[in-house]
């Protein structure tokens, strides 16, 4: 990473800490914001946040690695989380899963090479009456069929837009 990029990130992290406070209770909200903005929480970010909060970086690392929605590894712009719990399983999640893998050409737990999509399993997302259900970022899709998978992915592609390519910087982080 270029020095200037590090400085920029440092400045942004400082602003986040200022907004949430340096109290330990602010750690998770800070990390949630970092995750949202950079799609990953890098070693550098963890170290910087630890310094700003006056705690050991291992404390930050232990929190990041505990929660499913906080990640060290880069996650795509669109995170697809398909519910794997029993009611969605009975409603036919397996076919939807297969189609997602086919259409994205990745397996669960992976991110597409263009950095757009990450495919993950979710445990019960509270849509058991309308399964199979999945989340795309914060949005919920219910009664998903293999056929609908294509439309949903296409809508994401459209929302992504041709000109808003992932910046170099975000990839590095």
């Amino acid at each position, binding site marked *: 990473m270029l020095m200037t990029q590090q400085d920029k990130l440092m400045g942004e992290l400082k602003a986040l800490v200022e907004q949430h406070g340096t*109290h*330990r*209770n*602010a*750690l*998770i*909200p800070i990390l*949630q914001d970092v995750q949202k903005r950079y799609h990953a929480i890098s070693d550098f970010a963890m170290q910087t946040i630890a310094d700003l909060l006056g705690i050991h970086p291992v404390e930050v690392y*232990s*929190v990041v690695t*505990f*929660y*499913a*929605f*906080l990640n060290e590894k880069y996650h795509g712009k669109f995170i697809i*989380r398909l519910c*794997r*719990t*029993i*009611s969605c*399983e*009975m409603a036919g999640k*397996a076919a939807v899963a297969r189609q997602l893998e086919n259409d994205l050409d990745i397996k669960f737990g992976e991110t597409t090479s263009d950095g757009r999509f990450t495919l993950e399993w*979710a*445990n*019960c*997302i*509270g*849509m*058991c*009456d*309308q*399964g199979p259900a999945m*989340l795309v970022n*914060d*949005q*919920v899709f*219910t009664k998903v069929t293999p056929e609908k998978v294509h439309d949903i992915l296409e809508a994401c592609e459209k929302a992504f837009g041709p000109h808003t390519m992932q910046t170099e910087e975000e990839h590095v982080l």
Partner: protein
Amino acid sequence: MTTIMNDITFSTAEAGAGLKAALEKGRADVIGVVRESAMRGRGGAGFPTGVKWNLAAGAQGDKKYVVCNADEGEPGTFKDRAILSEWADLVLEGMTIAGYAVGAAEGIVYLRGEYTYLVRQLEDALEKRREAGLLGENIQGKDGFNFDIHLHMGCGAYICGEETALIEALEGQRGEPRNRPPFPVNTGLNGCPTIVNNVETFAWASMILAKGPEWFKGIGTEKSSGPKLFSVSGDVDKPGVYEFPMGITVAELLKNVGGGGAKAVQIGGASGNCIPACEFSRAIAFEDVSTGGSIIVFGPERDMLKVAENFLEFFEDESCGQCTPCRIGNTRLLEGIRMLQTGHCSMKYLQELCKLGETMQLASKCGLGQSSPNAFLSIVKHFRNELMGRACVMVCK
């Protein structure tokens, strides 16, 4: 994204009536009303709400907190999502009443990250309440009663629904459950007295203040008073959110939701019990089959071993890993299921696994490990013939 519902009493609530009635009473009397209703917590464990509030009211602390547990992660549960979508004000009102009763100035809704799409709506509701003087300082002209509520987002961890893990998460820690005692009513968030209640509990509390404890007690059974919301999914004609009086039998419930011909019903989610058809006359209540509201129905064709496998995969993934019986036990049970699937499990080993399950129930630190073997044990007990001696087939995932 519409959820099927039957007639739900929350629709008849008069806005603000509960809070108004509460503020006309002294703090102790508000708690008295909740105690009188004999309501037990709607989140699953069924602790009497009035007793909890009374303990927090009596506890010493500079600050006190009211926490709404909206982490709803139990497989098969979605009634809190429905309540927050349709009747958020009733929940916020219940929290405000609790704040008044125990002497807290701060309320927190711990909302699971999976429900982020509800945030805007909830923030709007909070803002409207502030503007209407239902949150903030000297609420409804009551001198010295200051209370406000904010949202805190969860991060994708089922265990954070356990109240002490939830508090750890609020404090910026890993969501690892604490030893109890001390209980949160004494030593909760930031070491201060804290009440943690389920979404539905707060909504009913609000209605109990408005309509009186006798109304609530008049519904349900002696040991499980009041109506309850159920999340019904699986092999039924009309999956959705249903209100029924506590004490309804499994058979009656199935009749109402179009679940004829079911071979088994999982009551209480993955951590609950699997009830076979021959026991459908049992009552859904704390004194018989208890539940936080999750009802998953299995039709005659379902493979119960797959059901057990799905639940154990869930627990293996969601165990916080802090204590051995749960961390290793769930893995061993899951391995056992895989052995059963390929027809490689001796009766002797199955008996060993059942003993391990019983050990987990006794020796695990928190409710997750204590209840994770329930489904496995009840399925082994009721469907043994279906599980044993399977031909070795290729398992296609």
